[in-house]
């Protein structure tokens, strides 16, 4: 390869010497603070200084390759030292300084002794070059870039001081970030999730660990995340074969999961039976008190009645064929079995009247209510009210729905989805996602705000983005059901 006639190639040894000389000077003038080497704002010292290397821009000092070999009159080392000091002490930023190079008078560039040392071609190049460009890098710096396999490449420190061992270092990002929380999580994760490579036991163990972790955590929603993890364990165990619609028995596995923490069955307060608009008697329920004559029979009921007496009266009313009165009496006295049987053999309207009378004695948030409402063909109250503190735990409600699926599967699905929506609306993302999974809601897309479920455990609708799940964590949870089911 033909070497360029440009002077830079020649006298490299001189240049190298000057290089080193420069570094020394720099260090001695600047002391220990490397940061201020070129950052100080300074007026352009070059224009005024008699020793200035006219036409030489400042950074050229470091690269004496720019320096014509024979130009002894420009003692760069001494001049540069004083100029360095001046540069440092005045106020111009280095880049502004570099800019000022362009303002340098063109005539200053033609140095007769210089051009004598150059061939005509070179002189032509120099004079036609116009203002010289500033050097992109005029001080040692550390180039840094990433490699494709988790590497970080940077130029080693030693090369910056003596310029001798010019080392490029390849770092491992894994080691650099060794102590980060995400790395810990990554290490404990038995991925990638390839069917052939990963045994389901490993996945189950991982999910179990996560569940335990979640249980221990006191953050809101952590109990529900534990639930999601345990669900994944269950799915693994059953190889993803959960057929809700057909086998209620399998649904009951999930219910078992839901109920595991509900050791103490909540006591759902019984309500007094309420007046019903369908009631054929418009009067309120008469208060059971002694001395008040029964309007129909004229009898004065005794203050306290034994169950036997209640039934006896029930029977007696029927002797007279007074079914409505009979039913009212039975309902008032919580003789539900009798009331329901009788009304079930009467017209449907009466029957539903008695049934609602019965259910009205249940607490609004009793899971029994939920089931009965659903069985009666309605979306249960629980689906729109759960998640509230007063309402109580949502889990028994879902459990009772899952284990007793009959009738219209579409209704059941809608009920569960509605429940999920309600929970999501209250910010209980994990709980909502559990419901969606039960209802076989398909995973949707991040950009579709109407989609229910995108990534398990994260809400794609909130403005802030996701709940604080580490990215790989979310991805792994999102992928699993797809992989396994």
């Amino acid at each position: 390869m033909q070497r360029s006639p440009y002077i830079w190639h020649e006298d490299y040894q001189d240049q190298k010497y000057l290089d080193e000389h420069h570094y020394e000077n720099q260090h001695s003038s600047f002391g220990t603070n490397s940061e201020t080497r070129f950052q100080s704002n300074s007026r352009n010292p070059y224009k005024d200084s008699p020793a200035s290397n006219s036409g030489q821009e400042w950074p050229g000092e470091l690269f004496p390759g720019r320096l014509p070999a024979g130009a002894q009159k420009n003692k760069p080392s001494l001049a540069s030292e004083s100029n360095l000091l001046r540069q440092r002490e005045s106020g111009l930023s280095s880049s502004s300084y570099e800019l000022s190079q362009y303002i340098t008078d063109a005539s200053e560039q033609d140095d007769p002794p210089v051009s004598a040392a150059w061939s005509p071609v070179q002189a032509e190049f120099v004079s036609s070059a116009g203002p010289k460009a500033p050097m992109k890098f005029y001080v040692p710096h550390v180039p840094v870039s990433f490699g494709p396999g988790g590497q970080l490449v940077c130029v080693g420190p030693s090369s910056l001081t003596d310029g001798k061992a010019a080392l490029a270092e390849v770092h491992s990002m894994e080691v650099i970030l060794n102590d980060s929380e995400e790395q810990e999580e990554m290490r404990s994760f038995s991925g990638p999730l390839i069917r052939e490579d990963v045994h389901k036991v490993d996945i189950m163990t991982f999910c179990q660990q996560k569940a335990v972790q979640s249980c221990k955590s006191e953050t809101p929603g952590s109990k529900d995340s534990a639930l999601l993890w345990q669900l994944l364990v269950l799915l693994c165990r059953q190889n993803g074969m959960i057929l809700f619609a057909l086998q209620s028995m399998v649904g009951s596995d999930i219910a078992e999961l839901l109920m595991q923490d509900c050791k103490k069955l909540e006591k759902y307060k019984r309500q007094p039976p309420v007046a019903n608009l369908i009631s054929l008697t418009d009067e309120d329920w008469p208060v059971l008190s002694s001395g008040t004559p029964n309007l129909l029979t004229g009898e004065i009921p005794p203050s306290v009645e034994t169950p036997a007496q209640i039934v006896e009266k029930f029977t007696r009313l029927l002797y007279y064929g007074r079914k409505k009165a009979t039913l009212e009496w039975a309902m008032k006295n919580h003789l539900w079995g009798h009331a329901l049987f009788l009304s079930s053999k009467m017209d449907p309207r009466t029957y539903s009247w008695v049934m609602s009378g019965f259910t009205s004695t249940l607490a609004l948030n009793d899971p029994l209510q939920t089931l009965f409402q659903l069985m009666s063909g309605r979306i249960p109250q629980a689906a729109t009210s759960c998640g509230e503190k007063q309402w109580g735990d949502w889990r028994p409600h879902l459990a009772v729905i899952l284990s007793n699926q009959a009738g219209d599967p579409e209704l059941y699905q809608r009920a569960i989805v509605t429940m999920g929506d309600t929970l999501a609306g209250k910010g209980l993302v994990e709980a909502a996602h559990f419901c969606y999974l039960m209802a076989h809601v398909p995973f949707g897309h991040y950009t579709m705000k109407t989609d229910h479920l995108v990534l398990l455990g994260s809400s794609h609708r909130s403005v802030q983005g996701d709940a604080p799940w580490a990215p790989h964590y979310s991805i792994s949870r999102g992928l699993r059901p797809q992989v396994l089911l």
Partner: protein
Amino acid sequence: MVSVINTVDTSHEDMIHDAQMDYYGTRLATCSSDRSVKIFDVRNGGQILIADLRGHEGPVWQVAWAHPMYGNILASCSYDRKVIIWREENGTWEKSHEHAGHDSSVNSVCWAPHDYGLILACGSSDGAISLLTYTGEGQWEVKKINNAHTIGCNAVSWAPAVVPGSLIDQPSGQKPNYIKKFASGGCDNLIKLWKEEEDGQWKEEQKLEAHSDWVRDVAWAPSIGLPTSTIASCSQDGRVFIWTCDDASGNTWSPKLLHKFNDVVWHVSWSITANILAVSGGDNKVTLWKESVDGQWVCISDVNKGQGSVSASVTEGQQNEQ
């Protein structure tokens, strides 16, 4: 724990200005003020010099590997105003093409996403940006954007070829319509975004202003398919900004200050998955940054920690020489 897994003695005789791994991580290219470009085989912790490329007549500022689908191709740019494209043919590296269309130092080269073809953007101190497109049979077509930045252009970086949001959008079945874009940083303290129009001309699409001094580097983050575009920029003013654009049309960019350093910041570089930014500054420290869930950028590592801080050794060196 020491994080260095390989040390390559490049034997460069002067300052090293860039070090880049190729697409597969098997080769490392370096360039220096000694006017050479060197290529090393760095597989399995080794360092075998494959090529010592001479051809530039001034300090070489940057190297860039083309996508391997086009072969083994490396571009380099230099103070000598030239861009050289080197190619490996039959096991030897040779100069394949030389572009001498600039009037001043060429400071930065960057290959476009391979989906667009073999296209190289070059930014120069003459203020122009040229785009070299390989048209076949050793021919390169040149398009030049004159006066892209007054005084000079220091860095160019291409936008990824993924349409923002495409990873998670409903697959529509049709081929995405790429809009070629790149970012440039210049001595006018600006970052400019350039877009190719339908007629093939390049137009300045956006001007991002936040720096108070020369922009030294720009890096457009690789895409992971989310609907945001991100650009990192660093400057002589010591600041590093992260620019994000949320809407698909790419019209509103907002800067967030990553950090204000005490010295010039020379390089910013994104990890492959775009979640970590490496920053290298005048204090010769390399720091790694990541965005936390609440949107703040935090420093997750100082690369030199544990191996002897670079600035400390430089300081000691200076003291010794006094």
